[in-house]
């Protein structure tokens, strides 16, 4: 009896599915590839977090020992600190410039719009490995163009890439150059989503340009800015190419080692697959929780306003 009803439920299920077989067929490649390169790695990586493994010798179950190691890991702490410092160095100027230029490019009176937009955006499409080497030339202490230009202002040459104090600044300059245009385009799209009548109504009421900016543009652009900020924070954490090439993987010493570079060294430099997975997982979960909390706070604040 129950068997019969089982069969008939399966039959009913099949009858519901069958007319849409093309739908499932068309989306199947995504799920196959995701299973192989997304889901399986995600699960396996979780398992790896509890083992000690170099990829060659047999795995060794170590329980929570990786997590304990992480708490005392000086290099990890250093990498997270560097990530924070680099982020603080470049995110405010980058987002400020992006906001300013988005404003200007959104003005109706501006001529040569397409040229300016292309010029500011071009850095985003270029291969980082090439550009980092060009910046390496420009930053060169003795023969670099940057120090040569500073010489005209009677500023003594700065050891951009050879000193622990300046390496983070050099990375920050490279990142500002590379990503300002991207954020500018996102903000430009946000600005174009603000209805023109808001500004007209404000102008009729006699609002000044500053008031319009403060009371219309900024509040309405807040979601876009928040999105840019989230992308930048994640970008700083997982940044790789810039550090790998410009400062030879975080140098001098560990002065520009960020989290992404640290993780790469741990995985493919010292082949600590288990420990690296543990660190990657923990930080990703912390970031996820942090994002959820800030989203909730923002929603509550948005509800009150």
């Amino acid at each position, binding site marked *: 009896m129950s068997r019969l009803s089982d069969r008939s439920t399966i039959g009913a299920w099949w009858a*519901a599915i069958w007319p*849409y077989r*093309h*739908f499932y067929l*068309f*989306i199947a*490649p*995504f799920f196959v*590839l995701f299973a192989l*390169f*997304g889901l*399986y*790695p*995600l699960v*396996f*990586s979780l398992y790896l977090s509890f083992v000690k493994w170099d*990829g060659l010798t047999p795995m060794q179950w170590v329980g929570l020992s990786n997590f304990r190691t992480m708490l005392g890991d000086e290099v990890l702490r250093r990498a997270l600190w560097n990530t924070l410092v680099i982020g603080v160095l470049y995110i405010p100027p980058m987002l400020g410039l992006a906001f300013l*230029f988005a404003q*200007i*490019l959104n*003005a109706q009176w501006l001529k040569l719009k397409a040229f300016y*937009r292309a010029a*500011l*955006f*071009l*850095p985003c*499409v*270029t*291969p980082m*490995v*090439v*550009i980092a*080497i*060009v*910046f390496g*030339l*420009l930053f060169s202490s003795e*023969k670099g*163009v940057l120090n*040569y230009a500073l010489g005209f202002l009677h500023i003594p040459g700065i050891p951009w890439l050879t000193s622990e104090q300046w390496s983070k600044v050099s990375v920050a300059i490279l990142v500002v*150059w590379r990503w300002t*245009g991207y954020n500018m*385009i*996102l903000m430009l*799209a946000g600005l174009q989503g603000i209805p023109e009548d808001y500004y007209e109504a404000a*102008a009729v009421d006699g609002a000044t340009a500053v008031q319009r900016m403060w009371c219309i543009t900024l509040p309405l652009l807040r979601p*876009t800015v928040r*999105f840019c900020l989230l992308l930048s924070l994640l970008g700083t954490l*997982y940044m*790789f*190419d810039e550090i*790998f*090439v410009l400062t030879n993987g975080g140098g001098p010493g560990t002065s520009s080692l960020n989290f992404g570079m640290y*993780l790469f060294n741990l*995985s493919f430099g010292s082949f600590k*697959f288990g420990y690296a997975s543990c660190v*990657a*997982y923990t930080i*990703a979960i912390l*970031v996820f929780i942090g994002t959820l909390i800030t989203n909730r706070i923002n929603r509550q604040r948005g509800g009150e306003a």
Partner: protein
Amino acid sequence: MNPSRTPQQLLVRGAAYIALTATAVLFLFPFYWLVISAFKTQAQIFTLPPQWLPLPPTGANFVDIYREANLLRAFLNSVLTTGGHVLLALFLCSLAGYAFAKYPQAPGHAKLFNFVLGTMMIPGAVTLIPSFLVMVRLHWIDTYWALILPGAVGAFGIFWMRQYFHANLPDELIQAARIDGCSEFGIYWRIALPVARPALAALGILQLIGSWNNLMWAFLVLRTPGMFTLPVVIYLLNGEIRTPYGMLMAGGLLTTLPLVVAFLLFQRQFIAGVTAGAVKQ
């Protein structure tokens, strides 16, 4: 609104033009430096005051990198892997995007779509090691497959194509084709795809740039010099003891140029694709 401009307005506009032009010059300067350095000798690159134009210009860097780094082969590897990756991505993303846009009554549709969007939250850093091990297990290390397949069909591409089909492909057209006896795949291939050309261009350019510039993954999965793509060749040349900057700049120029041309040709579509990324928030 006011046709006569006040002095204050002129001042603001003048300042805006100056700021914009100065930044544009600064932003283009590294490209300029890349181009002129490619035509300089090592000595010319490091003279002070710097040479603003290579005098006399030399083509030796191009010859050297062609000879020493097997640049032609690297270029071919880059073209084949990027080309394969982009074509596959366009096909699979548009196929899935079409399905999500045009079969809304299929059981489980909403759940499956939310699942696809949810996969965007997974950071690549977490899955890097196991993905690499999958490559080892499949014997894909040092093959084109390792560069073509992973990431070929992703949540963003599916989302982007779905939005486009949803807004621009009328259901009546599909119904009419069905009545004429066109197969479901035939409808996608002959009716949906031609309509989606602008969306495909945008997605294609995004994928092209990501794939062409890919350094870390290519560095991990490629082993023999004959398989190296352009970014890997450039990176490894940079690591040599006496960095051959002229050669690097020549190779760098050849690596950068295709992208700059592609960007300038498809600027509008590309920017549309980037801003669509903001929608997914």
